[in-house]
C-alpha cells in the first residue's frame, strides 16, 4: 500500500493487544502546546487505517520543537467493538527538541492496560 502523502516525521501505530489485531479505524488527534497562551492547539485529526497506522500526521516544516499531545479515542474504539474499557481516551504528551529526527509513537492497547514508548 503506497501513500501519496508526504512523509511525516511523526508516525504512530496502534495495536489491539487484547485481540491481537491492529487498532484499525481509531480516531486520533495531534495537538501542540502554544507556549505563550498555554493552551493546546489542534494540529491534525485522523483515523488509523486497517493497519493501525495514520500516515501524513504532520509535515516536517510544521513539526517545530515544542510540547505535543497525541490523543487516541480509545473509548469510542472499544464501544464500536461492543466492549467497555476503563480508559475513555489515551493522551500521550511528549516533548520534541530535535525536530529533524523521526519519532514513532506506538500504542499497545487492551481494555485494561496500555503501553507506549518512543520509537523512530
Amino acid at each position, binding site marked *: 500500500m503506497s501513500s501519496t502523502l508526504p512523509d511525516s516525521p511523526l508516525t504512530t501505530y496502534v495495536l489491539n493487544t487484547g485481540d491481537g489485531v491492529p487498532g484499525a479505524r481509531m480516531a486520533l488527534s495531534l495537538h501542540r502546546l502554544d507556549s505563550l497562551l498555554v493552551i493546546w492547539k489542534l494540529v491534525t485529526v485522523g483515523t488509523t487505517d486497517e493497519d493501525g497506522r495514520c500516515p501524513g500526521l504532520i509535515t516536517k516544516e510544521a513539526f517545530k520543537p515544542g510540547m505535543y499531545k497525541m490523543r487516541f479515542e480509545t473509548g469510542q474504539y472499544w464501544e464500536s467493538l461492543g466492549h467497555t474499557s476503563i480508559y475513555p481516551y489515551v493522551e500521550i504528551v511528549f*516533548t520534541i527538541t530535535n525536530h529533524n529526527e523521526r519519532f514513532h509513537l506506538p500504542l499497545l492497547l487492551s481494555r485494561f492496560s496500555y*503501553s507506549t514508548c518512543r520509537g523512530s
Partner: protein
Amino acid sequence: MALSLPRLDPSTSLWNLLTTGTTNDDGRCPGLITREAFTPAVYKMRFETGRVRESLGETSFYPYVEIGFTITDHSQKFHVPLLCSRFSYSPYRGS
C-alpha cells in the same frame, strides 16, 4: 513523584482537582480519596514524571503522564500502577 487527581464534572466539562500528593519511598501514595468522594465518573491521574527526571539530572520524552479512567463501580478498589522509564510508560488496571 508529585501527582494529582482531578475528576471530570460532566455538567460543565471541567476538571475539578480532588487531591494532590507525592509518592513515598515505595512509589505509593496512600490516602488518595475517600470512599464517599469516589463517585462514578471520569477521573484522571497526572504524574509529574518530567520533574522527577529533571531532579535526577535527566531529560525525559514525557513532561508528564496523564491517565484518564472511568469509574462505574465505586465500591471496588482501584489500583492505577504506572511503569515508566525515560522513553516509555505503561499503566494498567490493578486492584
